[in-house]
């Protein structure tokens, strides 16, 4: 697989973040925080009428983008922060850019800037990723 600094990683879109998926994830993660499944709780805290997506799932959209690009099992590191929240019914797009290529022995790695973009252009996730590139 050929990649070079400056290459854009093909984006990955979650068309609709749903409350139903948040509830499934809350159970799997054993995450008791009501912001992920109780609209009234969220509203009472002035954050509007929609539940808030779990941060690991926001990261998972970035992971999906990287796996679609370089293959399952290709991710070696994801380090991300969370400048914004994602609410139910939103559409978000994972994006990334290669900023370096490194070779270690027979393996080639892409160091990437990655982020999750909301429809208003703001970011809900941003950080870096290290991805093993498949050999040509």
């Amino acid at each position, binding site marked *: 697989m050929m990649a070079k600094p400056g290459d854009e990683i093909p984006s990955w879109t979650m068309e609709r973040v749903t409350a139903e998926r948040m509830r499934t994830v809350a159970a799997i993660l054993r995450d008791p925080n009501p912001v992920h499944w109780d609209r009234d709780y969220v509203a009472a805290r002035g954050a509007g009428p929609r539940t808030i997506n779990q941060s*690991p799932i926001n990261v998972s959209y970035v992971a999906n983008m990287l796996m679609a690009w370089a293959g399952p099992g290709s991710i070696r590191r994801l380090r991300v922060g969370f400048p914004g929240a994602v609410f139910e019914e939103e559409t978000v797009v994972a994006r990334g850019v290669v900023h370096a290529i490194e070779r270690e022995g027979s393996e080639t790695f892409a160091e990437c800037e990655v982020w999750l973009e909301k429809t208003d252009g703001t970011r809900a996730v941003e950080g870096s990723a290290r991805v093993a590139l498949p050999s040509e």
Partner: protein
Amino acid sequence: MVPPEAAIAALVGHAFPGGTYRIAHWENFLLTEATGSAPLPEGLAHPAHLFHVPIAGAGTTIAELFELAQAGSDSSVTIDYYDWEYFAPLREDVAYTARGGITEHARRPAGEAGAVVDSLTYRIELFDEAGTRAARASFRWHFWRLEA
């Protein structure tokens, strides 16, 4: 109520009980579907498992982590960062041994008079059944103490 800084700082060095965690096929299927991804091949587990598997495998829960840090409420906790390192892809039906604890603490003013935020850093490593390190999850959470 703002807990004494010394009490929170004393959490540095706290080790979780430790234990093992096996990602079941059903769990991987449901979590992977929730991310919007198609099922992964050959028993690969979705990388997003590196949030809850280390916590559960280390013998603790999100609720216990909140309690340990004396969180005022669920909504008083925010996330600074996740740093997920994969030395090998995570897989279904592997008994991962998890070991880790709390590694750092910092307190700073939070803007309002007397209010503070405590930032705690956690680090948990996963080892496969051969004892080889498979993954490491580091994360920092902020605990906002606004009710001074």
